[in-house]
C-alpha cells in the first residue's frame, strides 16, 4: 500500500467521473486528421457507385438506355429498377410503415430521385457512366403545395397505392393523404374554447430544412461470396437497426451481416434512415462479389436524403382575461414528400408532437396532424430533436407570445402565470405525457435576472419612442420543455424492436475496463462521458476505461443515437450494468476481507470494513481476485450486460432569452445577446454540455435566420448547394451565454435527462420571438422563418418601418 494517504476527495478527483469537465478523448484523433470515416475506408478490389437521378419532379420513365454507359471501359454494371425486381428490392419498407422506391419503378416522384446506379472501377468513371445513361421521361403535373395535394382533382402521386384506403396509421381519405393522427381530448378542448372569454389563433409554417451534417451519407458494402457474409461500413446513427433491416431485405442471416459505423461526421437525424444508395451498394456488392463504395456529394445530400420539419400549423389558445390558458387546439398539415419515410417510433406518425402543451398547465388540449404526399424528397427526420419536438415547442411558444400580445401582458409574466408549478410534478399533461420533474419558475427568474430584463424592456421602449432610431430592438423569450430519451418499449418501437438500449462492461484482471454500447457517437463525445459514468459507479479511473460503439459484431443490440436518447437510455444502461458488477464486487470484497457484505461501506473506489479505514479492497483488488480466485460459488470474471428499458421519457427544459437589433435600412438582424439556461438534470461533463449547447444554438440560429429549401412550381429545389443553403460559420455565429439549473430526473438511475437537442429546440422559437417582438408595437404577431435580411426588410417595408 502506498505510504501517502489520499483523501477520498483526492481519489475521487483522480477518477474523473461524473461532474468533471474531462477533455474529449475523441479530439486527439480528429484534430490531427486521424479520424476514420466511411470515405477513408479503402478495400482491395473496391468498386465505386454513382447514381443517375431524375431532373424532373414528377414523370413517367419511358425508356432507359444503358448501352452507352456499359460501353465505357471500366463500367462494371448499370442497375435499374428492372434489375432489382427479380430480387424484390426495387421497393423497400420505410420506418413509417410506407414503402419507398429504391430505384424509380416506372415513375419518378421527386427531383433527384434515384433512377439507376452505375458501378465502375473508379469514382470518375462512375460519374462518366452516369452521364451516359439515357433516360426518357414523360412529364406529369407536379404537386408542391401540400394544401393543393389534397384538392379533389390533384394529380395522383402514388399510383402504387391505388385503391388503398387504409394506411399504416388508419384510413386514407384522399389519394395523396397518408394519415391523420390525433391526440388529446377534442370535446374537452372544444368545451374549453366555448367557455373562454379570450381566443387567439395563428397560422405558421415551420419550413423544410435539412440537417446537413458536414459528412454526407455513404457506405462501403463488402459481400464475401465464399463465406457468404456481408460487412458494411456505413454512416448510420443506428447500426443495429440497419443490420436487422439488411438481413430482412437481403435474406442473409443476421449473424452473417456485420454493420460498422466508424467515425461519423455529424448525423442530426440525417443518418437514421436507410437510403437507396446503401441498398444499391449492398446489392451491387452481392452481385459483383467485390466491395462497393458509395458516398453522396453535397448536392445529393441536401436534395435527396432526409429533410426535416415542413409543418404547416394552425394553433389556437383559449384563455381568461388575465392570461390563464384554458385550452389548446392545433391542426397541422405535414408535408412528407413522395414517400412516408419519417423516422419516428412506429406508433407515432407525428412523433412526439403532442408535447405541444409545453411547460404550461393547460386544462384541455387536442391536436391533429395530417400527413400528405407531394413531389418532394421523402424524410421528415428528427433534426437535432426528439421526434417533432422542435415543431411542437415552436408552436406553443409562438402561441403563448401571441396571447401575451393580445392581452398586453409581458411575455415573462404570462409564462409565470401558466407554468406547471414545481409541486405539481410528476405532472400528467392533457396529452398524457407524465413530466418527470421541473422547476420552471426558478429557472425563469434566474434568466430574467441574468440579463436585467426590466432594463432591456425600458431600453426597447425608449427606442420605440424615437422615430429616428436606426434599429428596432426585439426581445425573445422561450421557456421550453422537451420530451427525450425514447423510449419505454410499451410505447416506442422501431420496426417492432423496443427502444431500449444496452451496455456491456468487462473489468479486466488488472482493473481497467472496456464498455461496449448499442449507441453510436457522431460528435456527442460518448467515449469521454460514458467512461465518466463507469468511473463514478465503479471507482475505476475513466482514463483506463475504453468505450467502443458502432460495430454490430461486438456491441450489444441497441437502437442507436438520436432523439437525445444516449444519456437517458444508454447512460442508464451503463449505470445499471455497472451496478450489477458492483453487486458482485461487493461479494468478492466481503470474501477477501472476511466480513459479511453488510459490514462493507463503499467509498469512491473501495469497499471498506465499516469502522476501520485501514481494512479495504479497491475495485482493482477485487478485479484481480475475480479472475484469480473467486469465492466459492461465484463465477470467475467481472462483467455484466444490461438492456435498459426506460420506465418513462425524460423532460429537460430551459429558459432562453435573445436580444436582436434590426437595421431598419437593410433588414439585418444582429443578435446582441443570447442567453441559454438549460436544465438537463444531473450534469455528467459540463464542458461537453456547453459544447453541445453551443452547437445546438448555432444550428438553431441557422434554421431560424437563414436555412430554406425553396421549390419552384416545377419541383426544382432552388437551394441545394452550400452557396445557397445557409450553414453558419464563426463569422455569422453570435456569441452564446450559457447557464444552468439542476433538477434531476427521479426515474433515471443517474438523474440525467439528456441535453444535446435542447438548444436547437429551444433557440429556434427564441429567435422568432425576438424578431417578431421588434415589430410587436405595430401589431405584428408572427413572421415565418427564416428571418433573412430580405424577408425582415420586406416586413419593415410592409409596416412602414424601413428607412
Amino acid at each position, binding site marked *: 500500500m502506498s505510504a501517502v494517504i489520499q483523501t477520498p476527495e483526492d481519489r475521487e478527483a483522480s477518477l474523473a467521473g461524473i461532474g468533471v469537465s474531462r477533455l474529449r478523448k475523441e479530439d486527439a484523433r480528429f484534430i490531427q486528421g486521424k479520424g476514420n470515416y466511411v470515405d477513408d475506408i479503402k478495400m482491395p478490389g473496391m468498386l465505386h457507385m454513382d447514381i443517375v*437521378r431524375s*431532373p*424532373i*419532379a414528377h414523370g413517367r420513365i419511358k425508356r432507359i438506355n444503358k448501352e452507352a454507359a456499359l460501353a465505357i471501359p471500366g463500367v462494371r454494371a448499370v442497375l435499374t429498377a428492372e434489375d432489382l425486381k427479380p430480387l424484390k428490392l426495387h421497393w423497400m419498407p420505410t420506418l413509417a410503415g410506407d414503402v419507398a422506391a429504391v430505384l424509380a419503378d416506372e415513375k419518378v416522384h421527386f*427531383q433527384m430521385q434515384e433512377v439507376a446506379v452505375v458501378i465502375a472501377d473508379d469514382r470518375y468513371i462512375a460519374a462518366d457512366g452516369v*452521364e*451516359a445513361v*439515357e433516360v426518357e*421521361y414523360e412529364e406529369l403535373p407536379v404537386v408542391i403545395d401540400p394544401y393543393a395535394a389534397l384538392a379533389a382533382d390533384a394529380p395522383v402521386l402514388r399510383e402504387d397505392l391505388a385503391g388503398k384506403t387504409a394506411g399504416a396509421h388508419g384510413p386514407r381519405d384522399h389519394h395523396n393523404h397518408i394519415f391523420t393522427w390525433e391526440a388529446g381530448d377534442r370535446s374537452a378542448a372544444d368545451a374549453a374554447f366555448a367557455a373562454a372569454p379570450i381566443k387567439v389563433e395563428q397560422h405558421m409554417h415551420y419550413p423544410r430544412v435539412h440537417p446537413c451534417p458536414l459528412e454526407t451519407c455513404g457506405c462501403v458494402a463488402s459481400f464475401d461470396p465464399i463465406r457468404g457474409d456481408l460487412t458494411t461500413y456505413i454512416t448510420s446513427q443506428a447500426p443495429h437497426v440497419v443490420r436487422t433491416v439488411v438481413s430482412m431485405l437481403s435474406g442473409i442471416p443476421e449473424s452473417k451481416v456485420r454493420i460498422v459505423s466508424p467515425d461519423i461526421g455529424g448525423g442530426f437525424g440525417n443518418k437514421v434512415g436507410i437510403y437507396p444508395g446503401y441498398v444499391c451498394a449492398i446489392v451491387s456488392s452481392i452481385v459483383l462479389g467485390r466491395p462497393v463504395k458509395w458516398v453522396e456529394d453535397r*448536392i445529393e445530400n441536401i436534395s435527396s436524403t432526409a429533410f426535416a420539419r415542413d409543418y404547416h400549423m394552425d394553433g389556437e389558445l383559449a384563455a381568461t382575461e388575465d392570461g390563464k390558458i384554458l385550452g389548446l387546439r392545433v391542426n397541422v398539415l405535414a408535408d412528407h414528400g413522395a414517400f412516408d419515410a419519417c423516422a419516428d417510433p412506429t406508433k407515432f406518425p407525428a412523433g412526439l408532437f403532442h408535447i405541444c402543451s409545453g411547460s404550461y398547465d393547460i386544462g384541455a388540449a387536442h391536436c391533429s396532424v395530417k400527413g400528405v404526399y407531394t413531389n418532394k424528397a421523402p424524410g421528415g427526420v428528427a433534426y437535432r430533436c426528439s421526434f417533432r419536438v422542435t415543431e411542437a415547442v415552436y408552436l406553443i411558444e409562438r402561441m403563448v407570445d401571441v396571447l401575451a400580445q393580445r392581452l398586453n401582458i409581458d411575455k415573462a409574466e404570462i409564462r409565470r402565470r401558466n407554468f406547471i408549478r414545481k409541486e405539481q410534478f410528476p405532472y400528467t399533461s392533457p396529452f398524457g405525457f407524465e413530466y418527470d420533474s421541473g422547476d420552471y419558475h426558478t429557472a425563469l427568474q434566474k434568466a430574467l435576472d441574468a440579463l436585467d430584463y426590466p432594463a432591456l424592456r425600458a431600453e426597447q421602449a425608449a427606442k420605440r419612442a424615437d422615430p429616428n432610431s436606426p434599429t428596432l430592438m426585439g426581445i425573445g423569450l422561450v421557456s421550453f420543455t422537451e420530451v427525450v430519451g425514447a423510449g419505454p418499449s410499451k410505447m416506442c418501437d422501431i420496426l417492432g424492436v423496443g427502444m431500449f438500449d444496452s451496455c456491456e462492461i468487462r473489468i479486466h484482471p488488472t482493473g481497467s475496463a472496456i464498455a461496449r454500447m448499442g449507441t453510436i457517437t457522431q460528435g456527442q463525445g460518448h467515449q469521454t462521458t460514458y467512461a465518466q459514468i463507469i468511473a463514478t459507479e465503479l471507482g475505476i479511473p475513466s482514463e483506463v476505461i475504453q468505450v467502443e460503439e458502432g460495430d454490430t459484431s461486438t456491441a450489444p443490440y441497441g437502437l442507436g443515437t438520436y432523439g437525445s436518447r444516449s444519456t437517458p437510455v444508454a447512460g442508464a444502461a451503463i449505470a445499471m450494468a455497472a451496478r450489477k458488477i458492483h453487486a458482485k464486487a461487493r461479494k468478492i470484497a466481503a470474501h477477501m476481507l472476511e466480513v459479511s457484505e453488510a459490514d462493507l461501506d463503499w467509498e469512491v473506489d473501495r469497499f471498506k470494513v465499516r469502522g476501520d479505514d485501514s481494512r479495504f479492497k479497491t475495485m482493482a483488488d477485487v478485479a484481480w481476485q475475480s479472475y484469480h480466485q473467486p469465492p466459492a460459488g461465484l463465477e470467475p470474471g467481472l462483467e455484466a450486460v444490461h438492456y435498459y428499458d426506460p420506465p418513462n421519457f425524460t423532460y429537460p427544459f430551459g429558459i432562453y432569452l435573445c436580444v436582436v437589433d434590426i437595421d431598419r435600412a437593410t433588414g439585418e438582424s444582429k443578435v446582441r445577446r443570447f442567453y441559454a439556461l438549460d436544465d438537463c438534470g444531473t450534469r455528467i461533463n459540463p464542458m461537453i454540455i456547453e459544447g453541445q449547447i453551443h452547437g445546438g444554438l448555432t444550428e438553431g440560429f441557422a434554421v431560424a435566420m437563414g436555412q430554406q429549401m425553396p421549390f*419552384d*412550381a*416545377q*419541383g*426544382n*429545389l*432552388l437551394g*441545394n*448547394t452550400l452557396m445557397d443553403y445557409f450553414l453558419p460559420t464563426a463569422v455569422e455565429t453570435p456569441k452564446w451565454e450559457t447557464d444552468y439549473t439542476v433538477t434531476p430526473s427521479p426515474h433515471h438511475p443517474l438523474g440525467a435527462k439528456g441535453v444535446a437537442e435542447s438548444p436547437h429546440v429551444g433557440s429556434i422559437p427564441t429567435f422568432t420571438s425576438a424578431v417578431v417582438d421588434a415589430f410587436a408595437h405595430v401589431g405584428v404577431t408572427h413572421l415565418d422563418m427564416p428571418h433573412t435580411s430580405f424577408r425582415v426588410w420586406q416586413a419593415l417595408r410592409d409596416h412602414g418601418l424601413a428607412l
Partner: protein
Amino acid sequence: MEVKLEKQYPLPVAPAQAWALLCDLRATAACMPGAEITEQLSETSYKGAVKVKVGPATAQFGGTVDVLERSDADRRVVMRGKGADKGGSSASMDLTATIEADPANANACVLNGSAMVIVNGKFAQFGGRMMVSVSEMLLGQFVNQFSATAQSIAAASAASDGAVAAETVVAPPPPPVRELDGLSIVWALIKGWLARLFGRKS
C-alpha cells in the same frame, strides 16, 4: 423554374425581309449563339442542338423544335422547343414571334417575342436566380445577330436589283460565336448589374 419574357426589338429592315428570315428556321437558329438545326423531321418539325459552355463544363442540349402555327398574313409564328442534356437538365420554350410593320418607316419593323421558358434540373437549381438576366442577354445576342443577318440579306437583295424574291435568300455566313460561353455570360451580367447600380444613383 419558369420565366416569362415579353420583348420588342426594332429592326432596321422591311417587315417582309424580317418575316422571311424568321420563317427560315435554320437561318433563324443560326442567329442564336451555340444553336443549330441538325435535322428536319417534317414540314414543321426539326431536330436541334444548343451548346453552352460555363468555364470548363459544357452542356449540350439536344431536342426538337415544332412550328405549331404560322400565319403569313399576320406574320406570326408559334413554336415549341424542348430539349434535355445528359447532365440532368431539361428545358422547354413556347415562343410566339410576330413581325410588325413600322407605320412611320417602310424599311423598319418591330420583332415582338413572347416566350415562356421552363427549365428543370441542374440548370434551374444552380442558375435559377440568373435565369431572367441570362435569358434577356441571350435574346439580346440573338436579336443583334438576327438584325445583322436580316440587314445583310436586305443589302444582298438590293444589290441583285431587288429581283430576287425574299423566299429564295440563303443564310449569310454563320455567326462568329459558335457556342454560348458562360464566362462571357457572367461578364455581361456583371456589366449589366453595374450599369443598373450606377444608373439608379445618377
